């Protein structure tokens, strides 16, 4: 556990020193959502109708942005080889890196989301569920994205390739995340959506570190 945390700490420290990355992700998220009122027009009820979907899709694209960096820099400077060679299981190392990735992207997105919900004139009943949907959804995005990030290591223009690989896999998270917010706004029961989103998260937690670790092993060969 100590070693798990030491990897998380190192990645957080790297993210903080390099700075720009997670700020960029949040800025992208905010700007994309802000563009919608300009594009669609300032009519409150139209914006309110699309708010949950727009915010969720923007969050998804924003977390996509930083995925390429998840393993790329470690791959280029030889750190990934040494991590692979360290005595602890690679799956745990990958999970630690994913955790750090979520803390630097998913978490800021979640924190920024209520502000955007106000901007999009979202119904007040949806705010709490928006946060919850992102809390359950964004870690799943980081986990699934890690597989894509590991698979494209060593290829040129990996960033575009990752999007093509993982965006289709994000669809279930999108459907049930938006479903949860809409249900809360409409005053329906939200339990089933919460359970399904949690189910997706735990399934990803169980499966993705193994798949990503296998892809990393392949890449350092």
């Amino acid at each position, binding site marked *: 556990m*100590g070693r798990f945390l*030491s990897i998380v700490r*190192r990645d957080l420290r790297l993210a903080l020193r390099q700075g720009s990355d997670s700020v960029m992700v949040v800025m992208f998220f905010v700007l994309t959502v802000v563009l919608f009122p300009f594009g669609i027009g300032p009519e409150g009820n139209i914006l309110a109708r699309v708010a949950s979907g727009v915010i969720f899709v923007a969050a998804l694209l924003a977390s996509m942005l930083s995925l390429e960096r998840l393993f790329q820099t470690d791959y280029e*400077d030889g*750190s990934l080889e040494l*991590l692979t*060679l*360290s*005595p602890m299981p690679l799956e745990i190392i990958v999970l630690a890196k994913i955790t750090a990735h979520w803390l630097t992207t998913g978490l800021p997105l979640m924190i920024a989301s209520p502000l955007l919900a106000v901007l999009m004139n979202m119904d007040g009943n949806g705010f709490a569920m928006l946060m919850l949907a992102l809390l359950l959804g964004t870690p799943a995005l980081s986990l699934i994205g890690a597989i894509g990030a590991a698979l494209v290591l060593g290829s040129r223009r990996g960033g575009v390739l990752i999007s093509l690989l993982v965006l289709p896999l994000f669809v279930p998270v999108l459907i049930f995340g938006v479903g949860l917010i809409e249900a809360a706004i409409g005053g329906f029961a939200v339990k089933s959506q919460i359970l399904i989103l949690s189910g997706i998260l735990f399934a990803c937690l169980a499966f993705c570190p193994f798949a990503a670790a296998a892809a990393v092993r392949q890449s*350092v060969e």
Partner: protein
Amino acid sequence: MKGKVMATFAGRDLVCIRGERLVFSKLNFAMESGGCLTLIGHNGAGKSSLLRMMAGLLHAASGDMLWDDQVVADDMDEHRERLHYVGHHDAIKPVLTVEENLKFWAGLRSDASEAQANFKEALDIFSIGHLIDVPGRFLSAGQKRRANLARIIASKSPLWLLDEPTTALDKESIKKLEDVIESHRANGGMVVLSTHSDMNIKDQQILNVSEFSAARGHESASLLAEGI
């Protein structure tokens, strides 16, 4: 360190295929505690591939490696615990200081606390103790390499796999590296290294990887036909 217990490390009939090209075949080696195996051979002969194979980064297409007569591939976790690998990249993060870089790597070993206590001493051996607070991006190539070598001294592992460790090092540092290798062997460690420059190392066993390379076209074709 295992003290006086002797360990052996050997490879049997190793075959390396990279990108459908046979690099070397039927390669054998054997060494024991205190030994030094120096890999020589022309560019592309497979020196780095062999070292990566020994580290477990690369899978042998056929053949196996034995540590104390146990097949290495059966317990890779244990094998990783006993080796240190220095590759072409130095894995020094530009935004972390030398201390943070080395402490992180030391912390991943099972002897973490001991390694973290040792690393200052290790830096002094390569006379980069004064660079301890300097971020990696300000280091020269040679200083990065020395910091990377300090990493392997800080935590004890019996097997060192060094892929051209002298790259970017000045004469003085090469001399120090030779001393370090000497004392590692005196403590019962093993060293496998590939080099193009002559290093002054006593009783080294030389393995010319080129001799096993598959320049003989018909043989490589027949091996591939066998499905290896």
